[in-house]
C-alpha cells in the first residue's frame, strides 16, 4: 500500500477519530461482550478449592482437600472483599448459595475445628454435605462459559448434557425479544403511516409554508428526549390533560378515566412521537426531488390518482421509506429511556432487561449476553442500511 501523497494525508486525517472511537467506544463494547462468555472471578478467588475439585466427578463428597482449601479461601475472600464476586455467580447456579457461602465465610474462622474440615464445614452448614453444592462451585469456576447465552436464548443444559428449551414459565428473554421486535415494527409502521403523508405535504407545499411545516417536525426533533417523555406523562396520566379533557367534555365519566400510561400504550405513543422525525426527514428529502410533473404526466396518460400514486410516486419514494424505516427500526429496538419512564410493567423492552441485570440482579454475564444478541441484530440492520442507502448519505435535519 502506498502511504504517501493525498492518500496518506486522507488516512492520517481520519486516524485520530478512528483511534479515539476505538478507545472510548469500541473498547467498552469489547469489554462488555467479553463478559458474556468469560468469567474468571471464581477461578481467581478459589484456585485451590477448584484444583482440589478437579477430578471429582460429583459422586459422593469431594476430597478433604477441597473442604480444607475452601475453609481457607472463603474467609480470605471475605477479608479482601472479593467474596461478593464468588457468591453471585455460584448463587445463580444454585439458589441459596449466596447465604451458604457468606455465612460459612464468616463463621469458619470462629468455628471449632471438628477433627476434619469436612465435619467442620458440615457443622456450620449442612449444605456442604450435598454434592450439588460442590457441583455449583465447580461449574462457576469455569473461566469460559456459554451458559449466559443459553439463558438469554431461554435454553438450558439438560442433565444428560444435551441442550433444550426451558420450561414454558421460565422462558423470559425470547418472548421479550419478540415483543421488542414487534413493538419496533409497530412503531416503524405507525411512523410510516403518519410520516408519509406529512412528508408529502411538506415536500409539495409552496416554500414559505413548507418551511413552516418543516419547522414543526424539527422542533420536536431538537427537543430533549426527556422533555418529550415528560410531556407525554403530563398528557396521558389519569389526571392528565387528555383525561381531564375527556371528562370535561363528558365523553368519559370521571370514574373511568383511561389508562394510557405506564403500560404498552404509553410506550407506543411516546416512542412513535420521539421517532417520527427520523421517518419524516429522509422521506421529505426524497420526495422533494420528485418533480411534480411526474404525477401530472401520469394523469395525462389516463391514470387515476390512485394508479398514479401506486405506479409512479410510490416507487420513487421507496429509498426514503427504506432509509426512514430502517433508521426508526434500528433506534426503536435499542430503546431504553421512554419504556423505562412510561412503560410500567408491561411496556418494558429488552434494553430495560439489560439495565435490570446490570443494576439490580448484578448478573453481568447475562446482561452482556443479551447485549451481544441485541448488538448483532443492530449491526445486521446497520449493514443492510449501509448497503441499501449508504451511510455517507445520512443527513441530519
Amino acid at each position, binding site marked *: 500500500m502506498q502511504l504517501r501523497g493525498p492518500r496518506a494525508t486522507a488516512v492520517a486525517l481520519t486516524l485520530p477519530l478512528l483511534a479515539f472511537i476505538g478507545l472510548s467506544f469500541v473498547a467498552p463494547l469489547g469489554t462488555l461482550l467479553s463478559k458474556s462468555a468469560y468469567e474468571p472471578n471464581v477461578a481467581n478467588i478459589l484456585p485451590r478449592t477448584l484444583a482440589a475439585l478437579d477430578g471429582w466427578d460429583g459422586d459422593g463428597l469431594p476430597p478433604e482437600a477441597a473442604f480444607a482449601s475452601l475453609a481457607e479461601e472463603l474467609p480470605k475472600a471475605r*477479608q479482601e472483599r472479593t467474596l*461478593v464476586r464468588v*457468591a*453471585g455467580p455460584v448463587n445463580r447456579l444454585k439458589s441459596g448459595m449466596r447465604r451458604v457461602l*457468606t455465612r460459612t*465465610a464468616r463463621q469458619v474462622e470462629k468455628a471449632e475445628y471438628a477433627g476434619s474440615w469436612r465435619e467442620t464445614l458440615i457443622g456450620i452448614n449442612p449444605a456442604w454435605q450435598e454434592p450439588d453444592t460442590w457441583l455449583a462451585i465447580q461449574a462457576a469456576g469455569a473461566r469460559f462459559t456459554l451458559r449466559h447465552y443459553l439463558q438469554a436464548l431461554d435454553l438450558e443444559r439438560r442433565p444428560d448434557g444435551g441442550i433444550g428449551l426451558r420450561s414454558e414459565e421460565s422462558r423470559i428473554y425470547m418472548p*421479550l425479544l419478540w415483543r421488542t421486535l414487534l413493538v419496533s415494527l409497530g412503531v416503524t409502521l405507525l411512523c410510516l403511516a403518519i410520516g408519509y403523508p406529512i412528508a408529502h405535504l411538506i415536500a409539495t407545499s409552496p416554500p414559505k409554508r413548507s418551511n413552516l411545516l418543516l419547522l414543526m417536525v424539527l422542533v420536536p426533533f431538537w427537543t430533549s428526549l426527556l422533555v418529550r417523555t415528560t410531556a407525554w406523562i403530563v398528557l396521558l396520566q*389519569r389526571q392528565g390533560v387528555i383525561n381531564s379533557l375527556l371528562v370535561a367534555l363528558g365523553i368519559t365519566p370521571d370514574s373511568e378515566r383511561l389508562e394510557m400510561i405506564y403500560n404498552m400504550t404509553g410506550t407506543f405513543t411516546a416512542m412513535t412521537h420521539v421517532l417520527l422525525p427520523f421517518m419524516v426527514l429522509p422521506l421529505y428529502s426524497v420526495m422533494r426531488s420528485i418533480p411534480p410533473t411526474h404525477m401530472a404526466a401520469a394523469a395525462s396518460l389516463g391514470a387515476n390518482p390512485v394508479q398514479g400514486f401506486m405506479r409512479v410516486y410510490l416507487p420513487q419514494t421507496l429509498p426514503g421509506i427504506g432509509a426512514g424505516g430502517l433508521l426508526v427500526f434500528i433506534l426503536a429496538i435499542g430503546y431504553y429511556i421512554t419504556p423505562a419512564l412510561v412503560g*410500567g410493567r408491561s411496556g418494558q423492552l429488552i434494553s430495560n432487561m439489560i439495565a435490570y441485570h446490570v443494576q*439490580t440482579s448484578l448478573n453481568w454475564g447475562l446482561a452482556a449476553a443479551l447485549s451481544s444478541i441485541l448488538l448483532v441484530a443492530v449491526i445486521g440492520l446497520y449493514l443492510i442500511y449501509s448497503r441499501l442507502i449508504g451511510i455517507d448519505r445520512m443527513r441530519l435535519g
Partner: protein
Amino acid sequence: MNKPNPVPSKVAARPNRALRWLTGLPLAMAAGALAAESITVVSWGGSYARACVEAYHKAFTAETGIEVLLEDYNGGLAQVRAQVDAGAVHWDVVDLEMADGKLACDEGIIEPIDSAQLPPGLNGEAPMDDYMPGAVSECGPGALFYSTIYAYNTRYIQGSPPTTIEDFFDLEKFPGRRGMRRSPLANLEFALMADGVPLDQVYAVLDTEAGLERAFRKLDSIKDQVVWWEAGAQPPQMLADGEVLMSTAYNGRIFNAQVLERQPFVIVWDGQVLDIDGPLAIVSGTSRLEAARQFVRFANRPTSMAYVSKYISYSPTRESAKALVDKHWETGIDMAPHMPTAPENMKRALQSDWRWWSDHRDEMNERFSAWLIR
C-alpha cells in the same frame, strides 16, 4: 478507590464551588479530589431524607466541618455489591434495611459497627441497654421504626372506605389500580394476611413452598391492576394524581403529605408491617472511613434519632430517645399518635422478621422478579 484522603479543613469547606469547578480542570476532578472533606451518604430520598438533613446532617457538619453529600437510592444491596465488586467504592454510608444490613455484613461488604461503642443513652445508659430488643444486629443497630401501610385519597374514594388489608386486595368492592413497592418485602406478608393467615403464622407459612405459592397466587389476583413504585416519594404522588386508588407506602411519607401538603389521605393501619430501618452502614473499602465512622456515631445519638421524629412519623429505636418525641416542627401536631408503634395503630400489626428476610432476601427477589415479568 485510590482517592487521596482529603485534608480535613474547616476553612476550605466549600467557599466557592462554582469557581472550583471552573478552575479545577476535569482531569483533576477525575482523581476525585474535592478540596473540602465530605462524605457521601446514601438514603431514601424525599421527605425522609429531608428529615434526616434537618435533624442531624446539618448539626453534624456544623460540629465536624465534614460536608454531607446526599444521594438517593431505593433500597437493596445491588449498588453496594456492584461498587465493591468493581473495586470502585464511592458511597461511604448507606441507610440499609435491617435484613440487608445482616446480609451485607455476612458478605463483608460493610464495616461491622460495634453497637456497644456507640454514644450512651440520654441518661448515660450503656448503648446495649438503651436500644430496644430486636433493634440490634451483630453488625449495627437499627435507627428507627417505620411501617409499610396502605393509604388512599378521600378525593377519589367516597362512600364506605377500605378499612382492612383484605380490602386492599378486593377488586370487586374497590375497583381501581393499586400501588405497590416493586419488591417482595412486605408484599408477601400483605398477601398472606389478606388471604386469612393469622399474624403469628405468616413467616411459618412463608417458609413453605405451598405458603409462598399461596402468597404469589394472592398477588396474582390483583397483578394486572398494580402500578409498581420504587421510591418512597412515589406513592403520595400517585395518590395525589389519582393514578392509583390505593397504594402501599411508608407511613411517614403519607403523614408528611397529610400535614405539609394538606392532602386528604387516610392511612389504613390494619395489617401494617412494622419494620426497623438501619443500620447506617459504612461501605467496606471507602477511603473516608474515619469521617464515615464519625457520622454513624453522630447519627446514633439519642438526640439525632429523636429529632428525626420531629420531621417525619418514625419512632426512635432507643428507649431514652423516646422521651424526646414531641411535636411536629412546623404544624405543632403531637407526633405520638402518628407513630407506627402507637397502640391504636398496632391493633393488627405484623412485626417484620428481618432475620427471616436476611435468610431469604435474594431468593425472594429472584422469584419476585421472575413473577413480575410473567
